[in-house]
């Protein structure tokens, strides 16, 4: 019997868990990460000689429902063609019945890592705006993410942002106006969106399968970034405002480097919600501007109607802040208005002051 050294044992442990991809063009290189439902591998697409991220369902959860969910996730991502949403290349089923899909391999860091680098606040806010753009795009297509958290946001070396992991996304039943890409979807009989897609050939699109689990009131998502209605399991209350809350929580994280509510379990988060134990951002960092804190708190309002009604409104407030303009979430007093005005026009004021100083000096020189 040959001796297996530590490296061999570790390697065997790893490769023994690899799915059988022998009938696919993919070859696994290593594990990138794993979640509650699937494992993501770095793989090589041997036909096109390019790296891909391969998400393969874990065998333990290969129930009919989870198969539907993975397929629906793949279909959702496929329909959301946006620079901020990772594109999908392929979807398939392994011989053992597990669903997999291949997507673009995104190189970068998660928002958690990005935040640790302590970039300037304006830079962090620009990253936040890109997240908002991607989420707003999904909302415009009737899809809510429901698991926005730092680990699901990738930031590339050049500031490019990708919203990942649409595994618990929900397609809004009866989504109105611009839900044109979600033809043929009937979410467990609660309504259907059958409008035509004006941009894509409908014949090219398979019908979306309903997300059974996401309609059943099960708590899906990550506690610290969940909206109260989500943490409390009120499925009927899930809407775009659920993502608005999570975006507020992401803004909170980007400003403070802390998770909004500390607490490992949903139960603890619920308790924290009840006791309203959210530490205001300025309590952890007094240098955070009041207006920005107000934007964050408005997005994270406990009652959904008190939040921004759309992601675009939240993004607009952040843009206004970046332009030194008043935000809708905060009413400034006269001193704050003056301070912001001075800050906004500081360069012009400086030039005027310099000009007056020169004139003043010249005036006195002329009198000598």
């Amino acid at each position, binding site marked *: 019997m040959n001796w*297996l050294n530590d490296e*061999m044992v570790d390697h*065997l442990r790893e490769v*023994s868990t690899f799915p059988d991809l022998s009938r696919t063009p993919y070859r696994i290189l290593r594990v990138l990460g794993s979640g509650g439902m699937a494992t993501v591998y770095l793989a090589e697409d*041997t036909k096109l000689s390019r790296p891909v991220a391969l998400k393969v369902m874990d065998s*333990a959860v290969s129930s009919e429902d989870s198969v539907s969910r993975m397929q629906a996730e793949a279909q959702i991502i496929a329909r959301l063609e946006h620079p901020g949403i990772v594109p999908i290349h392929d979807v398939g089923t392994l011989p053992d019945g597990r669903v997999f899909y291949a997507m673009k391999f995104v190189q970068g860091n998660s928002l958690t890592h990005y935040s640790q680098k302590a970039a300037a606040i304006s830079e962090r806010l620009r990253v936040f705006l890109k997240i908002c753009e991607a989420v707003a795009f999904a909302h415009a297509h009737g899809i809510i993410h429901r698991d926005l958290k730092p680990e699901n946001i990738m930031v590339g070396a050049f500031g490019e942002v990708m919203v990942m992991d649409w595994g618990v996304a929900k397609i809004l039943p009866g989504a109105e106006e611009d839900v044109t890409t979600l033809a043929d979807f009937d979410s467990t009989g609660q309504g259907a969106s059958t409008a035509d897609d004006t941009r894509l050939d409908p014949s090219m699109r398979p019908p979306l399968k309903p997300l059974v689990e996401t309609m059943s009131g099960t708590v899906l998502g990550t506690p610290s970034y969940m909206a109260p209605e989500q943490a409390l399991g009120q499925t009927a209350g899930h809407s775009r405002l659920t993502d608005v809350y999570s975006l507020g929580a992401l803004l909170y994280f980007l400003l403070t480097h802390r998770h909004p509510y500390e607490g490992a379990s949903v139960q603890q988060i619920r308790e924290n919600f009840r006791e309203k134990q959210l530490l205001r951002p300025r309590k952890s960092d007094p240098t955070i501007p009041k207006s920005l804190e107000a934007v964050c708190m408005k997005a994270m309002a406990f009652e959904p109607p008190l939040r921004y009604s759309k992601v675009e409104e939240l993004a607009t407030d952040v843009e206004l802040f970046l332009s030194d303009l008043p935000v809708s979430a905060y009413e400034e007093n006269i001193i704050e208005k003056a301070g912001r005005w001075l800050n906004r026009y500081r360069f012009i004021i400086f030039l005027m002051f310099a000009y007056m100083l020169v004139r003043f000096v010249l005036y006195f020189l002329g009198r000598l």
Partner: protein
Amino acid sequence: MMKDSKIGGGLFPTTQVSVIVRLSSDDLALRFQATESMAAVYWKPIYKYIRLKWNKSSEDAKDLTQGFFARAIEKDSFKSYDPSRARFRTFVRTCVDGYVSNEEKAAHRIKRGGDCPVESVDFNSAEMELKLSELPAENTMEDYFYKEWVRSLFSMAVEVLRHEFTAAGKTTQFEVFERYDLNEDRATGEGSYESLARAMEIPVSQITNYLAFARREFRRIVLEKLREITANDDEFRSEARWLLGANLK
């Protein structure tokens, strides 16, 4: 190489019946058989553990390892195992500690003869492995025991795989597995399969297919053996998850 194939017939049976249950049988012959099967995986980790944790000489560790299994059969020691309290490998390690401690107190050991299931295993191979490997820190001896347990289990699985593939005429498949997965100097990343394919003069797609097949079989063998040396379904699932990250249906 293992000189003696007495342990579990050299290659363990592929039965999925737990030997842990049979370890507490009233029938001595059945108990011996079950201990033999269990010892196939455990003797080497136990030997190394005694050598390092208890700082015993090679000869003493050999006697103690043999004595441990012989005593277990005689005294029906494994009968007291309660799956709800600990994993079997934890229980075994605790038993080894208790046994060696008692032997030290008694200041004598009875050398076991033909009734010991690890009478003539190749202790030299275990010694050689000890020399090749990095010695663990004193406070990590428990982890060391479990690590050696994994090594022992995997080594057996590789041997079974070799045996099965050879019997089925799949020597090329095993060679691919051996040259890639059992080769610490394997090339990694892009192009790694290509170099092996060139060396073996087979297409890259064959490398992919053979490896996938061999890994799947290796995993099956490991899980079969694991089922055999765990007490019940819960422990089996828990060990499978710990060992392979396998979430079994």
